[in-house]
Each structure stands twice: as structure tokens, then as C-alpha cells.
């Protein structure tokens, strides 16, 4: 290579800061990135820094090109794609590592800092917690400090660079706030948002097999939050309907893989009683299902429809937190007059699986007077015989329902729902499983309900002639407190240990609730500051029916105003220092002398001239000059200033 690759240690003062900024920007990515990428960046950082310390040449172009190619292939191999937040941030990290190896000039570090900014941005696309805001502010300060160091004097103390960049970021904060509030938000994205499949999201899946929900019940992650307009439904009515499963393969239940629109679904609902009005803020699930209180009747979410089994779904998957208002009727009947032949698929059972259960069901049905009688006897079997509700059920074999019903007798909601539905079908009663959430905790701190992943629940619906689909929750027969108390499932495990009610854990629980309330407000007002919230805020500010032009105008006016303020602050900052008392007094003496000191004329020489002039008493002139010089150049002494003051006053 013709170009020199040597380094001369000129980056020693700035490079550590650039590396620090990069590391800080990479921090939120570390848990998501493959380990080799973090390791590669770290290795390149150490390598490059030691090159600078030892003033060695940077690695040759061919080596760097080879590294670049293999790193790119590595990313491609790891992710199978290069789009999306995951591979995107991996590529950014790789770019930073490689750019680092060819950085020789101070200015090259700008590229590294640009990459750091993009890394911070991509981490925000991935997750936006409450602490993300302080994190991003700290990241901006750090990056701008590193930016400053790239051109600063080597001798400049670090404290000073940090102070300068913090000051400038502080000036920028009100500008950013004004722009953030008034920049018009739009509802629809310009282009499709790529879905990052790399990150796991806890939540219900499309199928259910034994153990799925009990795994969820350990997660206190929030599924959604609900604010009720007026009355809060009773705990026994807090069934949040999600998806409906009707296919059973002997072990797992599954439903429609894609949501379907059913034009007749809404018409088949007969409601009675008082409706419940509420607003749901739902976390991203990457699935189509929209949760609503059983049974939803109105909702204001776009392109969201009721499916043939009365499950609410949106055409696009929920890949961002969404908010919607809905109206539900806890008291309802559905499909009361459907042709029973259309229910055939809710009776199917796989041949030869779980034979003992089927046998039992047929015997019990024969012994019962009616379908309702049969249902009651199955529920009382669960209730009165030795069945346990536990988070950690023993493993089940190839005939899981048989094994559960007759041997282990320990299970979670999905076990009971599955066993119940199989028994119903075996006895000729159409049955299906509904997945959703049951319960929810009211947060007294902010008057809303938190529904967590731990509240995930499976229950059944059976169809009875004349009554239509009726909800039957077999879990309630085993552990009625699971449903009645409205407490989270995680509170009940096999050992029966509930939450301690002692002060420390109550305090802890209150802290958790307060934190959740802060998060809810954060989600609603900061993360959820979209077109609606913005319009609401503009209305509150007194802007009726604001359009984007008005908002942009306000933005420009505000930014101009704040900029003028900043400019004023800067003028203050660079104003000349105030004259000290001694200089003012000496100035007065000069004025009284009637003469003008010449450029370069020292006070002593000037004094001689004043004495020669004769207008002022020579002794006083001498005294003033001596005292002034003592005050100026001697150790601080208030008595001297006093003397100067009285001498000048005496003239």
C-alpha cells in the first residue's frame, strides 16, 4: 500500500473517549448480540488502542478487507438476513470494529461516533423502558464529550470537556423538548416496519400443550393494562378472551393459524345487562390476537375483526404497544340457534388416544340425566376427588389426558381445561378451549388494572342446545380462589404458599405497584404520545383542532424563542469580567488627575507625570499609586483597599 499506516500517538487523548462512547452505545445490545460480535469489537478496541500506545502501524488493507468479509458473512450466517434491528445493530458493531482498525486521524473518529449514535437509536427501537431516557441522555453527553475530545487540545483536562459537552446538551434540552411536543405525529408509517424475530416475547402462543401456561405463570411481565370508565367488573367476570382452540391431536390444542373474519359473528351475539366500557393498553405480542373482556361488542381499533369463534384479531400483528377502547357485555349468549351440524369439528378426537378418559366420559354421561347434569358431575369430580392445582405438574406421557386424570392428578389450568374438553367431546358435547387471561390486579396508585403474563389462563366453552356456547372454567372447580380472588396465578403454587402479608413484602408489593404505575404513565404519555395524545395535549394548551401546519408554526416560534434565550446565555457567558473595586478607584483617581495614561505607561510613570502636573498633592498621588500596586500585586488585604478608598475620596 502506498499510504502510510503508521500511528504517532496523536489519538491517545481522544481515542479512549471514542471507545468509551462506543462501549456505552453497545451496552443495551450486548444481551441480544451473538457473543462473538461483542468479543470482536472488544478485541479490536484493545488492539487499536495498543497500536496507538506503541505507535505501531494499523493493520494492512488486505487483512482488514478479509476481516470485513468474514464478519459480514458471520452476521449473515447468524441471522440469515441483514435487515431488522438485530442484524442491523450487529452490522453496526462490526462496522465500528473495522473502522476502528483503519482509524488514523482524529477526524476518522467522527465515523465511529456516528455509528455510536446509530447504535443508541437501534437500541431504542428494540426496547423503551423508563430508564431508556436517562440512558439516552447519558449516551448523548458521552458521545458529544468524545466528539469534543477529537479536536480538543491534548492538555485539556477531561473534566472540562465533560463540563462543556454537558453544558451544550443542557442548552439543547429545551429545544429538544419543544420539538418533541410540537413535531406533528403521523398515524401511519411510510413503509413497512420490519419485524424483528430475533427477540423473544413472553405471552400466549397459537397452540397449547401441557406446561405452556404454567411456564408463563412465573412471568410478572405486563400483558396489558386496563382503565375502566366507570365500574370495574367482578373478579368472576374478568375473563379476557384471546384465541380459541378447537383442534386436538391427543396432546396439544391448536386453532386457526391465521385470523379469519366472520361477518356473522357479531350478529350471533345476544347481550343483556350492563355493558363495561374500558380502555386497554396492550403490549406487543407479534401476534394478531386482541384481548378483550368476554365478550367484546364494540372496539375502536382499526382493521380488527371478530373471528368465527368470536376471537378478536387485527389484520396486522401487534408489533408495537397499542391502545384501544372497547365495550363488552359480561352477560351474553352466542350462537344459540346455530345448526348443530356446523359444530361437528368441535367434537373430533384423535383415534386411539387417551382411551380411558373417553371411556370414563361415556360412562359418566350415561349415568347423568342431561348434558348439564353431566357437566356438573365432571366438575364435582375435579372438585371432590383428589386433584391438585400446581405450577409444577409432573411430566405426562403420550396419553397426557389419561395420565393426568387417573395417575398424576396434578395440573395447571391447561391440564384441567384440556381434560374437561376431551371428556365433553367424548360424551358428544361440542367443546373448545379459550386462551386468554383471567383476573388482573387493580393498582390503587393510579386506578387501573394490571393484567400480567402470570394471569394467562385456559378455560373451556361447551355448546348446549338453546343456550349456545357457555363458558365453563374447570380450574375454578379445583382452585376456586384462582378465579374468585382475582389474584394472580403465580400466587398459588403447589405448596399452597400465598404471598406473605407481612409488612416487608407488602411494602415491596407497593413499590412494585408504584413502579408499574410510573411505567403505565410513561407508556401512555411518553411512548404513546401519538396523534391522539398530541391532539389531546394541544387541546389542553388551548389549540382547538390543531393541524400539522399550526403545530409546525408553533414549533418554529418556540425554537426561535429558545434559541434567542440560549444566545443571550452565551452573551452573558462571554461578557468581560466586572472591574474590581481597586480598578474602579484607580479609574476615579485618573479621572480626577485630569490626565490620560498612555499605552504602556505604568502607574509609577504616570504618577510622576501627575506629580509634575501639580494639580494634585504629590504625597497623596504617591500613596494612591503605591497602595493600588500593593492591592493589585500583593497578597489580599482589606485594609489596603480601605486606605485606597479613603485616599481617593480625599482628593
Amino acid at each position, binding site marked *: 500500500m502506498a499510504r502510510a499506516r503508521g500511528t504517532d500517538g496523536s489519538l491517545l487523548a481522544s481515542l479512549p473517549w471514542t471507545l468509551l462512547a462506543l462501549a456505552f452505545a453497545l451496552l443495551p445490545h450486548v444481551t441480544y448480540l451473538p457473543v462473538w460480535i461483542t468479543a470482536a469489537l472488544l478485541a479490536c478496541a484493545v488492539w487499536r488502542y495498543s497500536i496507538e500506545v506503541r505507535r505501531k502501524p494499523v493493520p494492512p488493507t488486505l487483512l482488514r478487507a478479509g476481516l470485513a468479509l468474514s464478519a459480514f458473512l458471520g452476521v449473515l450466517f447468524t441471522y440469515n438476513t441483514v435487515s431488522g434491528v438485530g442484524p442491523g445493530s450487529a452490522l453496526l458493531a462490526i462496522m465500528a470494529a473495522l473502522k476502528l482498525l483503519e482509524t488514523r486521524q482524529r477526524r476518522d473518529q*467522527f465515523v465511529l461516533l456516528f455509528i455510536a449514535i446509530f447504535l443508541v437509536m437501534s437500541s431504542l427501537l428494540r426496547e423503551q423502558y423508563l430508564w431508556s431516557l436517562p440512558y439516552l441522555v447519558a449516551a448523548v453527553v458521552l458521545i*458529544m464529550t468524545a466528539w*469534543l475530545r477529537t479536536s480538543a487540545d491534548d492538555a485539556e483536562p477531561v473534566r472540562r470537556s465533560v463540563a462543556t459537552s454537558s453544558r*451544550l*446538551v443542557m442548552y439543547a434540552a429545551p*429545544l429538544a423538548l419543544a420539538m418533541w411536543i410540537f413535531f406533528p405525529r403521523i398515524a401511519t408509517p411510510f413503509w413497512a416496519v420490519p419485524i424483528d424475530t430475533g427477540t423473544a416475547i413472553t405471552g400466549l402462543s397459537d397452540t397449547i400443550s401441557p406446561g405452556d401456561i404454567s411456564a408463563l405463570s412465573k412471568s410478572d411481565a405486563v400483558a396489558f393494562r386496563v382503565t375502566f370508565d366507570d365500574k370495574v367488573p367482578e373478579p368472576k367476570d374478568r375473563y379476557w378472551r384471546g384465541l380459541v382452540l378447537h383442534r386436538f391431536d391427543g396432546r396439544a390444542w391448536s386453532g386457526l393459524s391465521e385470523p379469519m373474519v366472520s361477518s356473522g359473528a357479531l350478529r350471533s351475539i345476544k347481550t343483556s345487562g350492563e355493558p363495561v366500557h374500558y380502555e386497554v393498553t396492550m403490549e406487543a405480542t407479534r401476534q394478531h390476537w386482541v384481548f378483550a373482556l368476554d365478550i367484546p361488542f364494540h372496539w375502536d381499533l382499526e382493521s380488527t375483526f371478530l373471528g368465527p369463534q368470536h376471537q378478536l384479531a387485527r389484520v396486522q400483528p401487534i408489533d408495537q404497544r397499542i391502545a384501544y377502547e372497547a365495550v363488552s357485555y359480561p352477560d351474553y349468549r352466542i350462537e344459540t340457534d346455530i345448526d348443530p351440524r356446523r359444530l361437528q369439528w368441535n367434537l373430533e378426537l384423535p383415534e386411539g388416544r387417551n382411551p380411558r378418559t373417553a371411556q370414563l366420559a361415556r360412562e359418566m354421561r350415561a349415568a347423568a340425566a342431561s348434558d348439564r347434569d353431566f357437566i356438573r358431575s365432571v366438575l364435582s369430580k375435579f372438585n371432590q376427588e383428589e386433584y391438585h392445582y400446581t405450577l409444577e405438574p409432573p411430566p405426562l406421557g403420550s396419553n397426557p389426558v389419561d395420565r393426568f386424570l387417573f395417575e398424576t392428578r396434578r395440573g395447571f389450568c391447561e391440564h384441567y381445561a384440556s381434560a374437561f374438553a376431551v371428556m365433553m367431546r367424548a360424551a358428544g358435547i361440542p367443546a373448545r378451549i379459550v386462551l386468554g387471561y383471567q383476573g388482573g390486579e387493580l393498582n390503587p396508585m393510579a386506578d387501573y388494572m394490571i393484567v400480567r403474563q402470570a394471569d394467562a389462563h385456559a378455560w373451556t366453552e361447551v355448546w348446549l342446545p338453546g343456550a349456545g356456547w357457555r363458558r365453563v372454567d374447570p380450574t375454578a372447580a379445583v382452585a376456586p380462589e384462582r378465579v374468585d380472588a382475582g389474584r394472580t396465578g403465580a400466587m398459588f403454587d403447589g405448596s399452597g404458599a400465598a404471598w406473605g402479608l407481612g409488612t416487608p413484602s407488602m411494602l415491596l408489593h407497593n413499590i412494585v405497584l408504584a413502579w408499574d404505575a410510573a411505567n403505565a404513565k410513561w407508556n401512555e404519555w411518553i411512548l404513546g404520545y401519538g396523534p391522539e395524545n398530541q391532539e389531546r395535549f394541544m387541546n389542553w394548551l388551548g389549540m382547538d383542532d390543531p393541524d400539522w401546519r399550526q403545530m409546525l408554526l408553533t414549533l418554529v416560534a418556540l425554537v426561535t424563542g429558545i434559541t434567542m434565550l440560549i444566545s443571550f446565555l452565551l452573551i452573558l457567558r462571554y461578557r468581560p469580567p466586572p472591574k474590581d473595586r481597586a480598578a474602579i478607584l484607580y479609574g476615579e483617581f485618573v479621572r480626577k488627575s485630569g490626565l490620560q495614561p498612555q499605552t504602556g505607561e505604568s502607574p509609577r510613570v504616570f504618577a510622576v507625570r501627575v506629580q509634575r502636573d501639580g494639580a494634585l498633592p504629590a504625597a497623596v498621588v504617591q500613596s494612591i499609586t503605591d497602595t493600588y500596586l500593593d492591592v493589585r500585586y500583593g497578597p489580599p488585604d482589606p485594609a489596603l483597599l480601605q486606605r485606597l478608598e479613603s485616599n481617593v475620596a480625599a482628593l
Partner: protein
Amino acid sequence: MSWIRWLYPSRLLPGITRAASRRVGRWARKRQGDDGPVTKLQPRRIYILPTGVGIVFALMTLAMLLGSMNYNNNLSFVLTFMLIGVGFVAMHQCQRNLVGLEVSFAGIEPVFAGQSAQFRIAVANRSKSPRHRIRLYIGDVQSDVQDLEPGESKIFVLPVRTERRGWVTLERFGIRTLFPFELFRSWAWLHMYPKGIVYPHPAEHAPPPPATQTALGHRQHDARGEEDFAGLRRFHSGDSPRNVAWKAYARSEQLLTKQFSGADMSSQWFDFDAVVSSDLEERLSVLTRWIVDADRTLEDYGLRLPGRSFPPAHGDAHRRRCLEALALFGLEQADG
């Protein structure tokens, strides 16, 4: 390799930017007039433009804004707006970094034609806060970058190539800063036209000076004997330290130079008419060479020009007077 350098338009289009800069500079001079010996930079004469890095920064924030809008991601809106805000603040900070600075001419040492004249410009910071990363420039020539603490004044050196003897004038020069983030470049043009003197270029192949006519009337023997001590005289700068009477200095704290009877006390006259050449510049060049050499060997010398003459002497002041006379010979002597 370092493709970032291409982000700087001054490198990308040097010719265009230089021509444009000249044109705007002329306009600025018409607008603000010539400057006095001490010029305080007022806000209205400070110009500002984004740098290449600044343009990339702006494009990056634009891309981030579009991304934030697309994802409807309010935190990345926060990040984007903070960076836009930092850009705004940087613009004002960059301009304020220059406002109120006092620029004055701090002298220049004479040089020989062909050397570069080192114009010294003092910049004083009379404010409460430090000024960072200040640099002076003339055309593509730049001074060092320096920071100025509150109340501090520093000298910036601007080298100007000289070709001919006479006066060298510092044309329009600028003071600029990229502080804080090199996103903006703010600058001011100054039209002080400080002058420096340029001596003729000492001829490389000069004939030896003509035979010496001694002022003392007799020619001492050529041998440079320094054996016979003849007395002490007052020290002139340029005297060899070997000849300084250090013992006498220790006693009286007065620098005296030992004189030897064997020393060459001759003094020469360098006469303009004695130089055999038809070219004026060549003549002056030869005279310059003689003076420089004579000064180096501590000889007394005199200079005779048409209409002016400098009686034999030596020392820095004498040398300067002679060389100045040569430098300005035949030129309009504006300042004498």
C-alpha cells in the same frame, strides 16, 4: 482510506471554494471597511457555515427523524431532537467563540526575499470564559490552533512567502474556529494590512568586496593575531563570547570586550557604484551579501548608496539600517 476527508468541501472543490471565498472576502471588506490596529470582533462581522461533517450530521439527523416517524418511536424522537438541538446550540456556540476577541498586529521580524515573513498577530480574550480552538489563516496557510483562557492573549504566526525586496503586506486574513463539534465553521475577515520589511536576497555567488580602504588610514597586517591585548571596550552585541572580559564582568557587572592589537580593526565601505552589474536588483543583492558576511565576521562596515550613506559601524541596529535602506532602495518610501 480516510474517506471522511472528502466530507470537507474545501478539499473536494478547492478551486471553486477559493474563488468564492475571495469574492465574498472582497464583499466583506467593502461592507466592514478596513480595520484599525486593534480590532474587536463584533457579531455582525462573523460569518458561519456548516462544515462537511456538519452536513453529514444534518443528513444523519434527518434520516433519524424519518426513522422515528416511521417507527412512531418516541424515544428515538427524543434522541433525534436532542441531536438537532445540539446542532443548533453548536452553531451559536461556534459564533460566540469568536465574538469579542481583540485582534492586533504584534510585529514581524524582517526577512530576506525568498524567506517567509512571519506575521505575528495577537488575539486577546477579554471575557470571563475561555475561547477554544482559535486559528488564524490566510488563504490555505493556517496558524496553530490555540485555546485562550479568560484574560489571556496569545500570539498567532501567519507565514507569508516573499519573493521580492521591499514591503510585504499581510493581505486579508481570517480568524476561524470549528469549536465545539466541527459541525460549523465560523470566521471573520480582517483587513489590517500590517507591513513587514523584506531585505534583498543575499546573492549566492557574490564577488568578494573590493579592496579595503581603511577608515583609520592604515592597514593592519592580515594575520588575525589575537595575541596582543590592547584594552577593553564596551560590549556590542555580536562580539564573540570568547573575547568578553568575564573577569571584569564579575567585578563590575559590565560587559566589556577585550581588544587585541593584532585584531582586524579594518572597516570597509560597501559602495553601490563599486558593484559591477547592470541590474539594480543584482547590485542590491550583492551588497546584501557583503553586509551579511561582514556582520557575521564582526567587521565594521559602511554602506554608500546613491544619495545616502551609512558610516562604518557594526551591530544589529547598523545592520538593520543598512539592510532596510537596501530593501527600500528606489521604492516609494511610504512610511520612511
